[in-house]
């Protein structure tokens, strides 16, 4: 059974290889093959899951060493897999949601001429993501980490003929690279500190941390956090996620909502042994989480593009997870739990958004929707269930998981606990506001769509069954997930052997927190209804307040990047090109010109007159004789 782990990765990898190298002859079956392999991988995952359930708790983690990858003296990189409860959770999430989205894509991409390649990329993503969560050392994790980055790059830029898509893809890859630098440095630090970067020995050494290694551990932790920020779109490396919505919607659902972007949370949770010993890094983590959850939420409120609004929401929800992960043992389990439920409902929401776009000629502006509930019943229902889950209405899954995080934030204790808890509660209120806004603008109110430029009126219609079925299944997950996980604390018991668990000591009674959260939730929904439900939504966006305008521009993050990095960088580059031409080459060419000029002048001595040459010979002989005699005299 254990040797099935490589198969888990190999199956989608094989699919990617086949689909990408297979050529046109696979065009007709490519999507089926890709989907089949995704489901096969899910099947293998399930088999491994049940096999794991069958073992006692301390027997559950299994290792599978494949081969030595890079051996250089002390540096021994291995290709080996480790499947424990944490990895298992991710495997099921990735393959499960992944398979559903493959299925959905069959319908969504039915008319795309490059469909075969799309499924190839999706399979490649699955393989890389599975490698990421199954690796038993940081270097192999890094391979998966960059692999998902590549898949993300390819899928965001899938419609390459659109310059905006190509730019967004490049931006995503570059911002992720910055994060990757963090991961690289973290691995190097681990190697120089512990002589290894495999999980087991590093965690063992880290937990024995002395005063001397504390600083190093903090460094490692901060670098891992940087990596997590890049991949999970956390402040300050969040700017790529909004643009990443240029990719096809199934991609947004799978990669930029459910799975890849949560890799940062996985990394932090996986490295719990390091973070536990590095309070400064933990503090940085919670700050990042708290800032991002508000940032994302604010951005989500202002966007009119349905996918970008959801992207802001994703950012915000991952902020919750990072916040929880930064809290230490009291938060790890809830971070992962929220991650899983978020995977369900956010994927469902995105698929719903995709379904709406499918019916609306790929229109994404919510101001041109309205009243769609009439035309798309299934979509409205599934989207609605996801909506209820995300805003945390009991007993939908978001209620269970998000509430736990808010409790844990308060439970951190002290002033920090109060601040973090307050942020989390405010975040919950804003979440309720913007999700209600999306819901109302899209499905309710007056219809606002009008003629296209070419005179075609969109005919909103329900999507085909193959797209609806995944949405329904995900909706079921978002309804029931939280309840199931919390029933008898099953999820906590499942995961705690890996991450450890601790009880916080919230200053307030959990029930009080629940009530408080409920109140702000209602407040958020109410405000949204006042603004978008009661009165008609203008088709052109109003000017809005300063904050709204800033939020529409991602709180000026891109402008900052543009001014500081892009134009600063291009000035630097231009300066260097100039320096290269005029400075270095100029120096060399100057020397050449000097030599040329001098010889041009000296050349005139060569006047061609024999007597002149004879004179210089004579003079030379004279000088030689004098020198010789003088040397003699001196000697």
């Amino acid at each position, binding site marked *: 059974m254990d040797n099935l782990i490589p198969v888990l990765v190999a199956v989608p990898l094989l699919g990617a290889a086949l689909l990408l190298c297979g050529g046109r002859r696979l065009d007709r079956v490519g999507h089926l093959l890709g989907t089949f392999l995704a489901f096969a991988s899910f099947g293998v995952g399930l088999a491994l899951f049940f096999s794991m359930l069958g073992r006692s708790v301390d027997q559950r983690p299994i290792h599978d060493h494949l081969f030595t990858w890079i051996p250089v003296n002390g540096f021994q990189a291995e290709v080996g897999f480790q499947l424990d409860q944490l990895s298992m959770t991710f495997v099921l999430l990735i393959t499960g949601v992944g398979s559903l989205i493959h299925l959905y894509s069959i319908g969504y991409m039915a008319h795309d001429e490059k469909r075969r390649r799309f499924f190839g990329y999706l399979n490649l993503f699955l393989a890389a993501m599975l490698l990421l969560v199954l690796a038993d050392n940081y270097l192999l994790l890094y391979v998966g980490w960059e692999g998902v980055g590549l898949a993300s790059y390819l899928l965001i830029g899938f419609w390459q003929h659109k310059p905006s898509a190509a730019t967004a893809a490049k931006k995503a890859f570059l911002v992720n690279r910055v994060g990757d630098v963090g991961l690289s440095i973290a691995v190097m630090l681990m190697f120089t500190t512990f002589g290894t970067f495999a999980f087991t020995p590093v965690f063992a050494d880290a937990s024995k941390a002395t005063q001397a290694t504390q600083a190093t551990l903090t460094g490692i932790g901060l670098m891992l956090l940087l990596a997590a920020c890049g991949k999970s779109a956390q402040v300050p490396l969040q700017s790529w996620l909004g643009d990443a919505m240029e990719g096809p919607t199934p991609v947004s659902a799978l990669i930029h909502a459910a799975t890849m972007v949560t890799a940062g949370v996985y990394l932090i949770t996986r490295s719990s042994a390091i973070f536990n010993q590095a309070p400064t890094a933990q503090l940085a983590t919670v700050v990042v989480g708290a800032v991002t959850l508000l940032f994302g939420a604010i951005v989500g409120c202002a966007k009119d593009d349905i996918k970008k609004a959801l992207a802001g929401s994703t950012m915000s929800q991952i902020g919750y997870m990072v916040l929880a992960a930064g809290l230490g043992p009291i938060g790890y389990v809830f971070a992962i739990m929220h991650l899983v439920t978020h995977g369900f409902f956010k994927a469902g929401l995105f698929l719903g958004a995709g379904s709406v776009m499918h019916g609306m000629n790929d229109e994404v502006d919510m101001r041109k929707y309205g009243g769609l509930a009439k035309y798309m019943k299934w979509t409205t229902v599934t989207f609605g269930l996801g909506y209820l889950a995300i805003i945390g209405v009991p007993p939908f899954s978001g209620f269970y998981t998000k509430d736990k995080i808010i409790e844990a934030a308060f439970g951190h204790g002290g002033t920090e606990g109060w601040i973090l808890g307050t942020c989390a509660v405010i975040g919950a209120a804003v979440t309720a506001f913007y999700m209600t806004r999306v819901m109302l603008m899209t499905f309710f109110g007056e219809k606002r769509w009008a003629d296209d430029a070419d005179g075609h009126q969109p005919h909103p219609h329900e999507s085909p069954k193959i797209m609806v079925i995944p949405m329904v299944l995900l909706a079921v997950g978002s309804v029931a997930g939280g309840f199931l996980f919390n029933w008898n604390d099953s999820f906590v018991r499942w995961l705690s052997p890996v991450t450890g668990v601790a009880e916080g000591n919230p200053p307030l009674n959990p029930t009080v927190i629940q009530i408080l959260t409920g109140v702000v939730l209602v407040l958020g929904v109410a405000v949204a209804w006042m603004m978008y439900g009661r009165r008609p939504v203008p088709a052109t966006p109003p000017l809005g307040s300063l904050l709204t305008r800033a939020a529409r521009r991602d709180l000026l993050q891109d402008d900052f990047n543009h001014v500081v990095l892009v134009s600063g960088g291009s000035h630097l580059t231009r300066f260097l090109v100039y320096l290269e031409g005029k400075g270095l080459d100029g120096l060399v060419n100057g020397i050449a010109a000097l030599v040329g000029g001098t010889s041009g002048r000296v050349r005139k001595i060569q*006047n061609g*007159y024999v*007597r*002149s040459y004879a*004179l210089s010979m*004579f*003079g030379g002989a*004279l000088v030689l*004789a*004098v020198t010789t*005699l003088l040397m003699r005299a001196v000697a």
Partner: protein
Amino acid sequence: MTSTGEAVQFWVLAVIAVGGALGMVLCRKAVHSALCLAATMIALAICYMAQGAVFLGIVQIVVYTGAIMMLFLFVVMLVGVSSADSVKEVLKGQRVAAVVGGIGFGVLLCAGIANANLHAFTGVGAANEAAGGNVQGLASLIFTRYVWAFEVTGALLITAAVGAMVLTHREATEVRQSQRELAEQRVRLGTQVTPLPAPGVYARHNAVDAPGLLPDGTPAEISVNPTLRQRGQMRQLGSDLLRRMGELEQSTAGWLGRKAPKPRSGSELAHVEQRGTEQRGTGQRESEQREVESK
């Protein structure tokens, strides 16, 4: 110390040698230079002999003064005796630099000699005596120790001779015409079918530069070598000469049993005189022109 006689001889010869050398450098005409150099060489030859190098002295005179200097003179003749360097120096500073450098060099050499320890000397007499004479001494060295160099020198001389021939050899640019072809050409052109008339008829001085006379008594210019004609060195037959020839014919007529020709009239003679003057004039002008060009 050497004898007083040698001292006297040295000072006399030294003055001659240096004078000759300076003369060679300073004379404008190459031929004068060559003569000055010859004087210097002879003086040096005597110096050799005075120093016991009798053989070298003789060789100096025979080979250098006799052969090499003559060669120089031949070439000077070939190139043109009258050609002389112009006084103007074209290279800026060349003369000053040469003189200054020369003086410096001379001072340097003299200083070197003065510094050398050369106060005692052996004299070459003993060495000459040992071999039974200067020539024998040199011969025994040349054919023993220096035989290899001697052989190589022989090869060098042969190479030089061949080299000189190759250098001065002029490649024929056209096929040399045979006598037959020349004769045919002559007939074809028809200007001068017969052989050229011989010069020097009634010659008194240098026969080749006096044109032969045609039957009518006029001088045949084509009988004189074209080179001489071009240089304007053709002897002009004056009316006086013609008159005297007429007298000669008259006087020998009886003795030879011939009828005496009619004496030439004065106008005839004057005509000849005039033509001669014209021709000399053109010839001289041409040669002057060539000289100007060569400068």
